[in-house]
C-alpha cells in the first residue's frame, strides 16, 4: 500500500481531522499543513479490530456492525493515503467461550490499536477482562447489559444507551402506550436477554403475571406458550435475539395467543421477519438507536458500499470506528495513547454527541420504539428515558 503515499495527502488529512474532531483538537490543527499535522497524519502498520458474530445464529447483528466499521475504515483510507488502516475481524460467532481466545489473539497482534465490539453482552463479559489486561481500548456498538460498565475495565466504552435505559423505556411503552394490564416476561438466559428481562420485569412490578426462561437454540416453545395462554397476558415481553424471537412469536400466533409481542434491540433485524412471517406483524421493538432516516448521508454511502440499507447499529459502529480512526490520525499510534484519546474524546458522531464518562458509558442516549408493519421494521416513536 505504500505506493499510495502522496505529498498532498498530509494537507488533506489535517483538514479532515480538523473538520471531524471539532473542539478538542482544534488548537493543534490551527497551523494546517505545518510540520506537526503532517506527522500526525501518517501512520504505518496499524489496524482496528471488529469483534463479534459474523457466523452463528445471530450473525446478522454482527455483520451490520462490521459493515459500519468497514465503511468508516474505507472512507478513512481513501481520504488519508499516508495513514492506511486495516480492519482485523474477530468472528466470535456470538459465543462467550470463543471470545476469550479471540481476545487474547487480538491482544497479541501489536498492530491492532482499538476494537469495535464485542458485539454481544455475553462475549463482552468474558473478553472484557482480557482487553483491560492488555490495555486494548474497545468501543461496543451494541452490547447493552448495564453491568458491563461496572467492572472497572478502563478499556471498556459503550457508544449507545444500555439496558438500564432501554428496559425502562420498554416497560414504559408497555404500560403507557399499550396500556397492558398483564404482561408475561420471557428471556433466553443470555447475559443480554436475562439482564434486560429482569429490568423490565422489575420495572413493571405487579403487572407481570408470569415469567419463563427459554434456551438459545431451542425450537419448541409449547410449554412456554401454554404458560402464556394460561396467564391470559395482554402483552409478552421477550429479552433475547431475533432467531428465537421469530420462532416464539410464530408458535404463539399458531397456538392462537394474540398478546402483543414486545422485544428489544436484539430482535431488530429482518431475520426476525424472515422467520416469523405474518406472525411478526404488530411486534413492538425498542432500540437505543435512531431510525436510519435521521442520517441521510451515511445511509446513501452505506447503500452504495454494501448494496443494502444500514441496519441495526451500523451507524453506531461507524461512529465507534471513527473515534479510533480520528485518534490514529492524530498520531496516537499505540494502545496507551489511543486509550487516553478515547477516554477524553468529545465530538459529534452521526448518531449522537460522543463523550464517554468514567465508566465508559456515552452521555447522550435516546431510545426509540419501532413497529413491524407490512413486513418492515418502521420507526414508531421516541420513548422517554426516565
Amino acid at each position: 500500500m505504500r505506493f499510495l503515499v502522496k505529498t498532498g495527502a498530509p494537507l488533506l488529512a489535517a483538514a479532515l481531522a480538523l473538520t471531524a474532531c471539532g473542539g478538542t483538537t482544534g488548537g493543534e490543527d490551527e497551523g494546517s499543513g505545518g510540520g506537526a499535522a503532517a506527522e500526525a497524519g501518517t501512520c504505518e502498520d496499524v489496524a482496528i479490530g471488529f469483534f463479534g458474530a459474523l457466523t452463528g445464529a445471530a450473525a446478522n447483528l454482527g455483520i451490520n456492525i462490521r459493515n459500519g466499521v468497514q465503511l468508516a475504515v474505507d472512507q478513512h483510507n481513501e481520504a488519508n493515503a499516508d495513514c492506511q488502516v486495516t480492519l482485523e475481524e474477530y468472528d466470535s460467532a456470538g459465543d462467550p467461550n470463543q471470545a476469550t481466545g479471540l481476545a487474547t489473539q487480538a491482544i497479541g497482534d501489536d498492530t491492532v490499536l482499538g476494537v469495535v465490539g464485542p458485539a454481544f453482552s455475553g462475549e463482552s463479559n468474558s473478553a472484557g477482562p482480557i482487553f483491560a489486561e492488555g490495555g486494548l481500548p474497545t468501543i461496543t456498538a451494541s452490547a447493552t447489559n448495564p453491568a458491563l460498565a461496572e467492572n472497572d475495565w478502563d478499556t471498556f466504552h459503550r457508544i449507545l444507551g444500555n439496558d438500564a435505559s432501554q428496559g425502562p423505556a420498554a416497560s414504559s411503552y408497555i404500560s403507557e402506550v399499550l396500556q397492558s394490564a398483564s404482561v408475561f416476561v420471557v428471556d433466553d438466559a443470555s447475559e443480554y436477554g436475562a439482564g434486560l428481562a429482569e429490568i423490565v420485569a422489575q420495572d413493571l412490578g405487579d403487572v407481570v403475571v408470569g415469567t419463563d426462561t427459554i434456551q438459545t437454540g431451542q425450537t419448541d416453545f409449547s410449554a412456554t406458550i401454554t404458560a402464556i395462554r394460561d396467564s391470559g397476558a395482554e402483552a409478552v415481553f421477550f429479552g433475547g435475539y431475533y432467531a428465537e424471537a421469530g420462532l416464539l412469536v410464530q408458535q404463539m400466533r399458531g397456538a392462537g395467543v394474540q398478546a402483543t409481542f414486545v422485544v428489544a434491540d436484539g430482535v431488530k433485524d429482518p431475520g426476525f421477519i424472515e422467520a416469523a412471517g405474518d406472525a411478526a406483524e404488530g411486534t413492538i421493538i425498542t432500540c437505543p438507536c435512531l431510525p436510519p432516516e435521521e442520517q441521510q448521508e451515511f445511509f446513501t454511502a452505506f447503500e452504495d458500499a454494501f448494496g443494502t440499507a444500514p441496519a441495526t447499529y451500523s451507524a453506531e459502529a461507524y461512529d465507534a470506528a471513527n473515534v479510533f480512526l480520528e485518534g490514529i490520525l492524530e498520531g496516537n499510534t499505540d494502545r496507551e495513547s489511543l486509550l487516553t484519546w478515547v477516554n477524553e474524546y468529545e465530538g459529534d458522531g452521526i448518531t449522537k454527541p460522543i463523550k464517554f464518562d468514567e465508566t465508559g458509558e456515552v452521555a447522550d442516549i435516546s431510545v426509540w420504539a419501532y413497529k413491524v408493519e407490512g413486513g418492515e421494521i418502521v420507526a414508531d416513536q421516541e420513548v422517554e428515558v426516565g
Partner: protein
Amino acid sequence: MSFLLNNIVELTVTGLVLGAVYGLVALGYTLVYGVLQLINFAHSEVWMYGSFAAVWVTVALGVAPGGPVLTAIGVLLLALLAAMTVSGGIALLLERVAYRRLLRLEAPKLVALISAIGASFFLAELMGLRDRVVDFFGLRDALDPFVRSARDNTRFLNPLETQGLFSIGRYTVSNVDVIIIVGAILMMVGLDQFIRRTRTGRGIRAVAQDSEAAALMGVNRDRVIRATFLVGGVMAGAAALLYLMRFGVTRWDAGFLLGVKAFTAAVLGGIGNVRGALLGGFVLGLAENYGSALVGSQWRDVVAFLLLVVILLFRPTGLLGESLGRARA
C-alpha cells in the same frame, strides 16, 4: 403443580407432537446402531437436508397459505417426497463416503464415529454457506430465493392452515397435531412390518444378529447396510416435513439439538429397537413438556436427561431393550 394439572391436555398433545418427530429421527440412529453397532452422528444432518428440501419445494411452487385443501395436500405430498428423497440420498451418500471404506478395512468403531462427526460438520456448514457456494458458480440470480440469509432461520411456507378440530378440556387439538401424531405412528407401523415381513427386512435382522453368519447364508451385507441407511434417511425426511408443519422454520444448525434429543430418545427406548425409538420419542417429548411446566422451561433438558439416567439405571438397555436382531419374524 396446579399449572401442570390445569393444562395437562395441552402439554400432553404438544409433547406428543414433539415426541413423534424425535421418534422418527431416532429411527435412523437405532437402525444403524442395530446393524452396525455404530452411532451415526451425521444423521441429524440427514434430517436437516430433508427439511430444506421440503422448504425449497414450497418456495419453488410459490405456495401461499389458505389455498384449497386439495392443493395443500398435493404440495405437502410433493414436499414429503422431496424431503424423503433428499434425506435418503444424503444418508446413502454418508454411507458411501464416511463409512463404507472404514467398514471394509474393519477400522475401529471410534474411527467411524469421528468420520461421522466430521461429515456432520461438513454438511451443516455447507448448508450454512450455501449462498457462497451459489455465488461461486455464478448462479445467484437464479437461485436467490433458495439461498438468501443462509445463516438465518428459513421459513416453511405451510400450505395447510392450522385449524382446530376438536376440544379436549381447554385445549383445541389442531389438524396439524393429528397429522403429526397419526403420521408418525403409521410410519412406525409400516417400518415395523417392513422389517418383520419383507426380504430386505429379514436381511437387516440377519445382519443385526450376526453379520458373518448372515454373509455365509448368502445375505449381501453391503446391500443390507445401504438399505438400513436409506430407510433411516427416508424416515428422517418424513420427520423433517412433520417438524416443519409444526415449527415452521429450519436452519443450517437446527439438526444439532434435534439430533441429540433424537439420539436420547433412541437410547431411552432401547437403542437398536425400532418400536423403542417411537416410544422413547414420546416419553422424551412428554417429559420435556411436563418438566418445563413443573419447574420452568430452563429446566426442560435437566428433567429430560435426569429421566434418561434414572431409566438407564434400572433398565440399562432402555425401555424396550436392544432387539433389532431378535425381533420375531
